[in-house]
């Protein structure tokens, strides 16, 4: 017999799903949001994304090649996703050197110090974002208003985000009914025509990405739906109690980073829980914390902090919240 036969334990078939395919699926799902942000923020969006992606890939390469001295795996797409998400979480006129510092924190500190892909407890892009927010508060909260390619990168016209307008206004005792006139209409917000981080503005683009992720079975519905659902319920209660002091639920979903956070950041495989029950608890925790920070906290936006706080609970949830096993208890019809 001329053939040499392979012998290995079963199964002898594999689903052809790979880490790379999943990561590039996420990249594809992010493209609609990338296109809308280029549409609204022009050159700025392109420069920020390119800088962030290139520096994330470079840092990962350098660390794997020269510090870990292990095979370089930057082609698995995980650093590319981190780079894109980091860019989506910052204003489109952020100076290049800050983006490079943010990328370094994301990849080198939040990801590689823990051993790289699969081991980091906190979402790398969010760690990078929060680091930049705390270290460079002015640059990180100066938001260009959508102007397409009519303005350049550094000289973009800036303005406040809807969340900041409401937060400042309420603090100064202005009535909500008056503040509402200063912010974009819900349909404008839905399409993304407002100030904000470059990738978070267009709800429609993010929802298209969500649909893609669900159809491709890259993520399940549990985390995004429980985040959005808990924010809707919590803000609806507040709004019903005092409509003059609290913004309506729709505003809370469309303004700021809820959709980007719920669909792309909180669902990061490595830093989210692994069974459906934990996913729902995790999602509700993020939703509730977001609203608490927005309504009573110092910052107008709280999605990033909420996700990072809940990330910390993930190992605990994985260890103690167990799915009901098949045949665990006798229950017959």
């Amino acid at each position: 017999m001329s053939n040499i036969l392979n012998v290995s334990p079963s199964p002898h078939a594999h689903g052809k799903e790979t880490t790379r395919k999943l990561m590039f699926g996420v990249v594809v799902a992010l493209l609609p949001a990338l296109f809308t942000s280029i549409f609204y923020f022009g050159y700025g969006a392109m420069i920020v994304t390119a800088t962030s992606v290139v520096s994330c890939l470079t840092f990962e390469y350098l660390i794997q090649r020269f510090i870990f001295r292990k095979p370089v795996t930057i082609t698995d797409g995980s650093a590319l996703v981190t780079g894109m998400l980091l860019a989506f979480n910052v204003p489109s006129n952020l100076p290049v050197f800050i983006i490079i510092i943010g990328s370094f924190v994301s990849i080198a500190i939040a990801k590689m110090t823990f051993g790289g892909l699969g081991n980091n407890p906190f979402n790398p892009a969010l760690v990078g974002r929060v680091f930049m927010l705390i270290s460079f508060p002015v640059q990180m909260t100066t938001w260009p208003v959508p102007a397409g390619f009519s303005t350049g990168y550094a000289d973009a016209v800036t303005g406040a985000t809807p969340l900041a307008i409401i937060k400042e206004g309420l603090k100064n005792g202005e009535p909500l009914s008056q503040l509402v006139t200063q912010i974009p209409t819900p349909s404008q917000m839905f399409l993304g025509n407002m100030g904000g981080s470059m990738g978070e503005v267009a709800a429609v683009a993010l929802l298209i990405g969500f649909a893609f992720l669900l159809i491709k079975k890259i993520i399940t519905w549990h985390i995004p739906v429980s985040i959005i659902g808990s924010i809707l319920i919590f803000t609806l209660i507040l709004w019903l109690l005092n409509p003059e002091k609290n913004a309506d639920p729709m505003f809370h979903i469309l303004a700021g980073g809820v959709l980007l956070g719920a669909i792309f950041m909180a669902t990061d495989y490595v830093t989210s829980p692994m069974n459906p029950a934990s996913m729902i608890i995790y999602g509700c925790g993020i939703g509730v914390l977001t609203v608490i920070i927005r309504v009573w906290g110092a910052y107008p936006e709280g999605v990033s902090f909420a996700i990072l706080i809940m990330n910390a609970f993930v190992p605990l949830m994985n260890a103690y919240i167990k799915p009901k096993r098949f045949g665990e208890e006798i229950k017959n019809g």
Partner: protein
Amino acid sequence: MLKTFPIGGVHPPENKITADAAIEFLPVPSSVVIPVTQHIGAPAAIMVNKGDYVRTGQKIAESKGFVSSNIHSSVSGKVNKTDLVTDTSGYKQPAVFIDVEGDEWVETIDRSNEIITEVKLSGEEIIKKCLESGIVGLGGATFPSHVKLTVPSGKKCDVLIINGVECEPYLTSDHRLMLEKGEEVLIGVTILMKALNVNKALVGIENNKTDAINHLTKLAPIFPGITVHALKVKYPQGAEKQLIKALINREVPSGRLPLDVGTVVHNVGTAYAVYEAVQKNKPLFERVVTITGKSLSKPGNYFVRIGTPVRCLIEAAGGMPEDTGKIVNGGPLMGKAINNTDVPVVKGTSGVILFPKEESQRMEISRCIRCAKCIDACALNLEPYLLMTLSERGLFERAEHERITDCMECGACSYICPAGRPLLDYIRLGKTSVMKMVRERNMK
């Protein structure tokens, strides 16, 4: 909405290449090797000596103990020797080597094509006949059928489930049997119902075999109590506990048997073998085997005598393709890779698959990215990623607590893992260690 089991599952490409190939008789080979262990339980004791002349259907090894099975000669000829043979699992075990001379059957076997509908034997006689004829579960687990038919006192069985799911890709032996021997299969079901003293039997078939579903549905009204049910295509639906859940929504408790929820599951192949044993007096020495693979020139389904070397099957299917990289005995998800083609076909051989080289290698292993797809795929709601880690680190107490012994080794987790991690390999290791640990603890 088609019925299915509620938790987990995967849907591999079906690749049922031989679905339309009618079952043919594989010529009797020049020699056969019949192992004494072709079933779960104690090995049978060899009753023949070197030089003895045996006839087709003659008992050559006797069942030892309750959970054991008789073995019959599948050919007529002279016993060349009794010696060790490497079986599918790769281990050596005793076997009877027979050189074929003609094909002289034991005269009590009814070789006519006539279909006998009327069941004359009583329930007890049927069970005895199954034991005598060496009937074992032909779905792959090869559990002796007479044991499954004997309901212990204190237990009750109210419904019989017939497994025509064939959820493994590639395999079509049960499919063809239902299509070509539908009547015999249903008479076999009636016999099983009589033995178990139940008046209801459900036949579950996955919806990728619509011709078989239609055929049996048309025949079923003649047989009181038998109904045919189409099921959504999902692996591992052929697993006993999953099939019970899908068909009658009863959940077999962990570590218990289907009888604990009032049911027994038999395969359609077993039903056919029972028909032949009870109505035609023919012991189990032949079964349907699918020989298939993408590169084979003539893949097909054959009635094969037990003990025929796999080599003969491959020759009948057009010879081994140049690009063959792996030969699997059984389905691609749960079958065993064999290391040579002299391995004999046994009672549990439902198919032989030849994989081309590019499909015979596993993918490179990378880091676990915690995507939870293994948890999603597990039909028992276990956490394969965790069980692998615990086994890898030797944390067997914790693995026991996480119910590693519930795992039925269907392989859905390894199949789905995007990082190509050998989840099932480690879970098997952990399972064996945990079971050893439990045995030692019980001995104290």
